[in-house]
């Protein structure tokens, strides 16, 4: 479990992280989302012990990072943002070095290597020099190094950067499988990636957490109203007004004439879905509904909304 309490980090006058709080239990995949410079990498670096916080507490499995950094680092697998690697080293030697520092040697290393090469698809490059590997392979080498000791906690800063769509799907599946037993905290600027992979999203903006919840929680909290586009054979504006009066849950936003009818944009609260009422009303009146399309909010909209104007916890 990771517990972050009143965590802050100042770089001189600049407050990169401003007293943030969150708690992540084991078995949860959490996406850390934020624009560039929002403070997500700084937060991850403080959790891994790379940076010392200006204030606040980081606890991993009830151990405080300031007193038990080494113990915590044994439990964490970390993939840094730019995936730094020793280009001059052979992939096997690099993984052997990381494993050796983590106390995995001899037969245990051979087993770990076999598992990780299989999981990350490194079989064809295991005896190649790292600098000769493609960006996708380099990303997978970084992932392999972070997982060679089969850690309980995985912290991945932009894990799918540089991967092609097939590799992204593979890594996503890998992370999802790992997340069943482990705690995975991953940052990404690819919103679809976060949405497809994680159980919970934390959005950070200018060093503050502006949203924290599941995908659905964020949707219902930040996008209360649903927009519905409806095409009907109604020819008169007053007929539309009549429908609006009879179905109080809806609010007409606009209505535009189309050949043989009208295109109506209307709005309703997510929890008061009036589509059945509209349908029954139309049947009673003998109107024809040609189409009815609800526009649900996307994570992009929420993200843009929060990181431009700020917001509240879900």
């Amino acid at each position, binding site marked *: 479990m990771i517990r972050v309490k009143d965590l802050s980090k100042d*770089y001189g006058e600049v407050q990169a992280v401003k007293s943030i709080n969150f708690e992540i239990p084991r078995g949860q995949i959490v996406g850390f989302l934020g624009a560039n410079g929002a403070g997500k990498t700084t937060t991850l*670096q403080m959790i*891994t*012990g*790379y*940076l*010392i916080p200006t204030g606040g507490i980081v606890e991993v499995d009830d151990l405080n990072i300031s007193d038990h950094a*080494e*113990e915590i*680092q*044994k439990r*964490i697998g*970390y993939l*840094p943002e*730019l995936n*730094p*690697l*020793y*280009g*001059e*080293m*052979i992939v096997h*030697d690099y993984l052997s*070095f*990381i494993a*050796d*520092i*983590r106390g995995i040697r001899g037969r245990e290393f051979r087993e770990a290597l076999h598992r990780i090469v299989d999981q990350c698809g490194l079989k064809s490059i295991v005896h190649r*020099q790292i600098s000769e590997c493609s960006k996708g392979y380099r990303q997978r080498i970084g992932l392999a*190094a972070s997982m060679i000791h089969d850690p309980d906690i995985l912290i991945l800063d932009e894990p799918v950067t540089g991967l092609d769509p097939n590799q992204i799907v593979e890594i996503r599946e890998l992370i999802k499988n790992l997340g069943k037993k482990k705690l995975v905290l991953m940052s990404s600027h690819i919103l679809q990636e976060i949405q497809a992979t994680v159980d919970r999203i934390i959005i950070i903006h200018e060093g503050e957490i502006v949203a924290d919840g599941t995908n659905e929680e964020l949707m219902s909290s930040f996008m209360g109203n649903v927009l519905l586009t409806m095409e009907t054979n109604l020819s008169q504006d007053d007929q539309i007004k009549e429908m609006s009066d009879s179905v109080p849950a809806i609010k007409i936003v606009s209505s535009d004439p189309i050949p043989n009818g009208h295109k109506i944009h209307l709005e309703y609260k997510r929890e008061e879905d009036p589509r059945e009422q509209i349908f029954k009303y139309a049947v009673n009146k003998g109107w024809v509904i040609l189409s009815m399309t609800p526009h649900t909010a996307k994570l992009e909209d929420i993200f843009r909304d929060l990181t431009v104007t700020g917001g509240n916890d879900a």
Partner: protein
Amino acid sequence: MHNTKSVFLKEIRSFFNSPMAYIFLVIFAVVNGYFFVNTFFLIGQADMRSLFRVVPLVYLFFIPALAMGLIAKEKNTGTMEIIDTLPLKTYEFVIGKFLAAFSLILLGLLATSVHLITLISVGTNVDYGSVISGYLGLALVGGVYASVGIFASSVTDNQVVAFIIGVFLVLIFFLMDWMLIFMPSALAGIIQFLSVNYHLSNISRGVIDSRNLIYFFSLIGFFLYMTVQTLAARKWR
């Protein structure tokens, strides 16, 4: 201890997987060989003293060049973030790096033993005691300069800057002995004691005094300690 060995082996592998080690060893051998062979053929002087005089001069540029990337490169490429988040103590990392650089210097010195073999084969009467103490002195100076070079490499992420700082610092220790005539007599004793050449000449004469050994080991320890402190301070930035 095991972690130090891991860092040491990684570093040695990196040296030999890149042209770094080969360039260092070949040029070190060629430059030293040139000065030795010069006196050997031109003046007809067949002893190891000429070599022992020239190696400290070659060190002045070679060791900072060897050490400049040891930490600066890690900081520059970002691999320091990997190191800092591994369950690895900073001193284990620094000592591992130092031992790797020191081993390469010893390998360089070993290559100069070909001149000793030349002397023996041409029938020169070799004073083995002074040869051994001469090599010991050179090894210790190499150790001091390696620790200075690693410290210089830890204060910046630019290898060229690390090289310049390294050369500057080793030059200070090298030139102290030469500057004594400009120093007030009250300071001269202290400056002389801090000078690398003073202790090297003592050892090279065949006198292995504990004060000289303590000086070299203290200086190595001091610069490695400063390197550890410099790296630890980065986390507070």
